[in-house]
């Protein structure tokens, strides 16, 4: 499998996801500098987490205009799997590949801790091996919002990827860490080849992390 990880100035989970890809998918990804203009022939493009451009403007807004994003969008439109994690999710929203908005956490604080998510649609390339999974979040702006028309549309199209839930899989206010509407933790595009998610599967990818539930997302891509 040929994989690519985009590196923006301020990306800081690029290495982490590259290690997870190497360990789980079995080959190391090509790291692509944001000023490069094309990605040819990819089986997976990852837009990693971090603070691209320091998130000094709206998160992901600057990075979404980087030269490489044109090629990411073209690849996505051709059906290449594209995955945005955390800041990468914010970038994919800003670039128009995914719907909705990510607002400041309802607590108004950065939150770093384990949460539990439940796959809402397990018939996609990213989630066919997914079950209720524990993995960390680490963000200040992960409060997903979409207006009622958009929510209806993404629900009708099975575009909700993950929802925050409790240990029993119940989706409730108590298990929602950041105020996301309908506990949404990740969404797909219409064709389900683009995934954006706030939790970090690459930080729950080996026993040393205390939990390796994040592996199932990468393993799904292999099957």
């Amino acid at each position, binding site marked *: 499998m040929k994989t690519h990880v985009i590196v923006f*100035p301020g990306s*800081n*989970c690029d290495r982490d996801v590259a290690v997870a890809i190497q360990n789980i998918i079995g080959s190391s990804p090509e790291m692509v500098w944001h000023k490069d203009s094309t990605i040819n022939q990819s089986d997976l493009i990852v837009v990693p987490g971090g*603070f691209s451009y*320091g998130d000094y403007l709206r998160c992901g807004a600057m990075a979404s205009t980087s030269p490489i994003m044109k090629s990411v969008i073209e690849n996505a439109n051709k059906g290449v799997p594209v995955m945005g994690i955390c800041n990468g999710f914010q970038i994919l929203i800003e670039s128009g590949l995914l719907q909705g908005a990510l607002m400041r956490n309802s607590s108004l604080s950065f939150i770093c801790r384990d949460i539990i998510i439940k796959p809402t649609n397990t018939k996609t390339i990213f989630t066919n091996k997914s079950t209720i999974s524990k993995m960390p979040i*680490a963000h200040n702006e992960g409060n997903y919002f979409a207006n009622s028309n958009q929510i209806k549309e993404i629900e009708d199209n099975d575009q909700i990827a993950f929802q925050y839930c409790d240990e029993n899989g119940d989706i409730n206010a108590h298990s929602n860490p950041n105020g996301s509407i309908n506990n949404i933790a990740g969404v797909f595009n219409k064709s389900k080849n683009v995934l954006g998610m706030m939790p970090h599967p690459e930080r729950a990818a080996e026993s*040393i992390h205390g939990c390796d539930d994040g592996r199932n997302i990468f393993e799904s891509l292999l099957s």
Partner: protein
Amino acid sequence: MTSSNWHFDTEKSLVESHGLKLDEFEKIVEGLGREPNLTELGIFSAMWNEHCSYKSSKYWLKKLPTSGERVIQGPGENAGVIDIDDGDVAVFKMESHNHPSFLEPYQGAATGVGGILRDVFTMGARPVANMNALRFGDPNHPKTKHLVSGVVGGIGGYGNCIGIPTVGGEVNFHPSYNGNILVNAMTVGIAKKDKIFYSAAAGIGNPVVYVGSKTGRDGIHGATMASAEFDDDSEEKKPTVQVGDPFTEKLLLEACLELMKEDAIIAIQDMGAAGLTSSSIEMASKGNVGIDINLSKVPMRAANMTAYELMLSESQERMLMVIQPKKEELARSIFKKWDLEFEVIGEVTDTKKLILHMNGEEQASIPINILVEDAPEYQRDYIVNDPSPLISFESKDFEDKDILNDLLKMISHPNLCSRKWIWEQYDHMVMADTVVRPGSDAAVVRVHGTNKGIAISTDCSPTYCRHNSYEGGKHAVVETWRNIVASGAEPIAITDCMNFGNPEKPEIMGQFVECIRGMGDACSKLNYPVISGNVSLYNETNGEGIYPTPVIGGVGLIRDLSNTMTIDLKNEGNVLYLIGESNNHLGNSHYLSIIQSREDGGTPSINLDDELKNGKFILDCISKKLLKSVHDVGEGGVLVAIAEMCISGKQGIKIDITKDFLHGFFFGEDQARYLVEVSQNKLEQLEVDASKSAVKIERIGEIGGTSISINSIGEVELSSLIDHHTKWFNEF
């Protein structure tokens, strides 16, 4: 000298406003053979203030043990370096940012993190962990909440953005910090042994290069401000606080590490306190050379900046380097790729002088040795106060006290309650190598790509230091050592951050001297040398000093991560043992302060032989796989430590103990003790080994159930413990 015989052309008030004493000014005139101009006066002020010159502390710091078989670089460089096998080294240091954090908590704390990160990556190391030690005033003081929120926000804001995990630290509250909070930040980095970078300039004619952010007018005289006491008008000093830009620091980190892979850098120095002044002078001094700088070439953020402002600005995210002339274009291309400034601003000379030009005119010419070797050094007068007397407590004084109720009060107190509210605001998992997260005895991070790890702990008990500075100094060292042992690591070395009041007061100087003596004795005995550090004096407001606070940051090595230990109880049916002697020492304990609002009774004495014996026993048991969890018995004593293990592991325990003086046993703060969890099939071996090693062990009880129950006393549910433990910060 009295003002009447002031015979210089320079205004006396100008000298005083630069924080220089009149005899220090005389020394400058003598050294230069003339009076300094304003720029030169500013440079002397920046180099000779307490923060940069260590003039009150140097004499005493030299008494600390600084060498050892794993020490590659001791104090004197940007950070210390230790060998962690396989060609790898750990690089670390702790630094204070107290004064600025009180004036502007978010930026003060953020730039404290930024500064210590630069100290570490300047040495060629990729930072892998941030730690901190924070002291705030009374929780109910009107400023405390604002300061806590700001400092926590600033530490998180900087560390999260640059993508280095903040893996732990300590936070305490005491009224002695009402007017001077402490923000001590520590960074640990990993490098290759043959790729360490130093600051000594070399090669006459080699280019001196400025990289990073532009220079603005922020932070001018920051180091001088940090070398003075506060008074009611200190708010006006806010403009001396710098503003942090973690995004630029991230770019600077990546650009420096990229350039360090090439054979281009001869010397590199972070522009920290006193900015361009201290970085250029330190590089020249260490290399025994001179440096010429053309200040017109310095990238500037503001128009019409003067030589004085350029030399004294503490704008952040800047570095000074001497590079190989042939690699200049390669270096420039790397910094341009990362959108950073790169400017050749001067050259290395053989004059042994710092010579500055701007707009074609000479602005300063100072022999380096006057600035550095001839810097004032004081052996200040000191008085050692007698330690507060020990008080012996008797069981009959406690007959009407409810142990479990007292436990709940203690674990809900700001000084002992859960710090989850804080660490959840820090990204403690980025880099995906965090093995033990905040909340255990020591944080553990994996050395990337290996199966070994680094354990890190910061600690200090200022109350102990206040009541017996010698034992308090020992305690701070030993507490980190014990935390590292409890995590399964071999303790290797420490960094220190010496936070004290005004050293011109003999009793404050006495505290400093005694803390150093205690630290030195502990470090020597434990083979645990000091490899870097920082001194912060004048932590006083309106003449009131803080408690003596020698914060220690310890680092250890876990060769095989499968030996990593945490505090959470693992399995029902296992047995909890107490290792070490208990003598009911309630003096200056958390029990007295929280339950009885008393602060007296002396500091527990530390028997270093016992520390060494018990610590070695614990490490031996861990390597034999006898233990399931380990917790150092520290603040609050045995019962608080048990509660922390239960809360962390979501396990109950049935305690079966018979003692004459239960309060003394459960809440006493005797030293050299650990709690260990052992499975049934290893009990015998543990007891045999302990007896062979002459280590005292005591069975506490069996793990299981949903409560802490104590025979003959009663029980308290885990859910209630958790509620009490998390309540205070959740309502913050």
